[in-house]
């Protein structure tokens, strides 16, 4: 059905025909619960699992009149940067033949890029919306932590992840984000965004006058007006990046400059430790979250003879793929006696340091910009044998999750070889309007 293997399950929930998304099809990443429709997380462990309830974001899609067109392929449990670790086969990149679509929300980005869905939901724990958006030449938004409810999202790393939109344009992405955003009693970490209340009090951290003319709706913010926008460029996120990517990045900054924005370089030393801190925290949370998959409440039918520990270990050997095992084991290691202070505590210190650096940099700039990914889309099969190299590709996206901030990836252009490059724009907490406005000048 799908040329690019973008979907795990192709099943339609017809829209009500009324509401802001009445004429839109939305593909939903397969780690977001859909009542009555198989939800696998890209894992054999959940093959055949049918959630008895909808995630809050799915309820909101239905309330907005959207037609849900299927469940999209992903790296198993969100653990990957290429959508090659899915138990249901790799997804292809519609924008770059023979290359990976990025991950972990590769199916969502590929579905939008190929026109197999108008819009899609992804999830972003360390770049899993922005990376595939960049690699497939579409737009993706990772919202501020707490803007979108995680109720019904099958958790990988709770303190880092957010559900967000993937769309062909910034305006479309903003419209979808507006539908799914907002406080939810089922997720105590959600809160009302300052801009959501009609009174525009203005976030204290959004300094200057750049944002004042923006109306209350998120999609109205996509007016492309970047006159007076101050962009900070963290030099650490350019160091070591692919030359063709950096060239394309500067072209996009030049385009923003020509529309009235200005930029300055800024040094954020803490970012050099973001990938390590991210992986220690994400793996630690994963080792705890994925303990629930033991074959009792869901999962493969156990047929082993043994006590429960032996049986659980057998189910988990069979149900999990190699990358998931690797992360569970490394997380278990990092949290185990004698290593907790060395890895987990240090990673939390790094997280605080990174937050401080962002706060400081965003006092001098409206937004920060970098290439979304330091490399163009990898060739398929290239990165599977070398996990550390794959982790390091997340250098530019993970800092944003550690700092709980919002970020958008918009197409910046292509390399000379015709490979898509994404521009990442990071804003202050709940500064979604600012990044939407800045991004809409390009897409």
């Amino acid at each position, binding site marked *: 059905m799908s040329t690019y293997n973008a979907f795990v399950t192709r099943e339609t929930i017809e829209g009500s025909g009324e509401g802001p998304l009445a004429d839109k099809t939305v593909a939903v990443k397969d780690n977001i619960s859909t009542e009555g429709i198989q939800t696998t997380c890209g894992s054999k462990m959940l093959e*055949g*699992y*049918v959630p*008895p*309830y909808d995630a809050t974001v799915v309820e909101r899609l239905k309330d907005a009149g959207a037609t849900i067109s299927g469940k999209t392929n992903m790296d198993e449990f969100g653990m990957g940067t290429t959508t090659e670790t899915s138990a249901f086969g790799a997804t292809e990149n519609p924008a770059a033949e023979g290359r990976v679509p990025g991950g972990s929300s590769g199916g969502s980005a590929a579905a939008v890029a190929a026109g197999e869905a108008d819009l899609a939901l992804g999830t972003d724990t360390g770049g899993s919306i922005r990376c595939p958006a960049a690699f497939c030449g579409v737009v993706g938004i990772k919202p501020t932590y707490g803007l979108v409810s995680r109720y019904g999202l099958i958790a990988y790393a709770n303190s880092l992840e957010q559900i967000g939109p993937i769309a062909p344009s910034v305006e479309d992405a903003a419209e979808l984000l507006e539908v799914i955003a907002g406080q939810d*009693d089922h997720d*105590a*970490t959600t809160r009302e965004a300052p801009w959501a209340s009609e009174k525009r009090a203005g976030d204290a951290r959004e300094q200057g006058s750049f944002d004042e003319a923006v109306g209350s709706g998120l999609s109205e913010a996509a007016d492309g007006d970047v006159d007076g926008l101050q962009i900070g460029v963290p030099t650490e996120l350019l160091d070591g990046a692919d030359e063709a990517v950096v060239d394309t990045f500067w072209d996009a900054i030049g385009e923003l400059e020509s529309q009235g924005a200005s930029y300055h370089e800024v040094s954020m030393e*803490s970012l*050099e*430790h973001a*990938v*390590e*801190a991210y*992986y*220690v925290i994400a793996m630690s949370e994963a*080792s705890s979250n994925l*303990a629930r998959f*033991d*074959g*009792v*409440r*869901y*999962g*493969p*039918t*156990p047929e*082993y003879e*043994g*006590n*429960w520990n032996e*049986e*659980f*270990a*057998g189910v*988990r*050997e069979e149900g*999990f793929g*190699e990358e998931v*095992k*690797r992360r*569970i*084991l*490394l997380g*278990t*290691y*990092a949290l*185990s006696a004698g290593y907790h202070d*060395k*890895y987990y505590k*240090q*990673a939390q*210190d*790094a997280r*605080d*340091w990174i*937050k*401080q650096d962002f706060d400081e940099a965003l006092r001098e700039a409206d937004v920060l910009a970098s290439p979304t990914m330091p490399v163009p889309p990898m060739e398929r099969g290239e990165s599977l044998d070398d*996990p*550390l190299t794959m982790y390091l590709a997340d250098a530019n996206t993970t800092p944003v999750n550690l700092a709980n901030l919002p970020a958008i990836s918009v197409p910046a252009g292509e390399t000379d070889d015709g490979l898509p490059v994404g521009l990442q724009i990071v804003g202050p907490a709940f500064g979604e309007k600012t990044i939407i406005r800045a991004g809409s000048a390009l897409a």
Partner: protein
Amino acid sequence: MSEPAVDPEEVRHVADLARVDLDDEEVERFTEQFGEILAAFEALEEVPEVESEADLVNVMRPDEAHECLSQEEALQNAPESEDGYFKGPKVS
């Protein structure tokens, strides 16, 4: 930066703690990869201590009963159940 020694026994021990069986080839691959990955994590030792003022509030709600899944719905994905309960392997 010294490479932390990870030996196959350590990998097996962690796998045992995490309740994940591994075959011999996985143990071999993980032993090598964990050495490399943990060596990269060592860079976190350079992170300075920072004073952080977390902007956190408790979120409370009244302790009241709400509607929830029916027993049937809760059990619908279980490989095995009996008399309205999940059925698991024997404890010992």
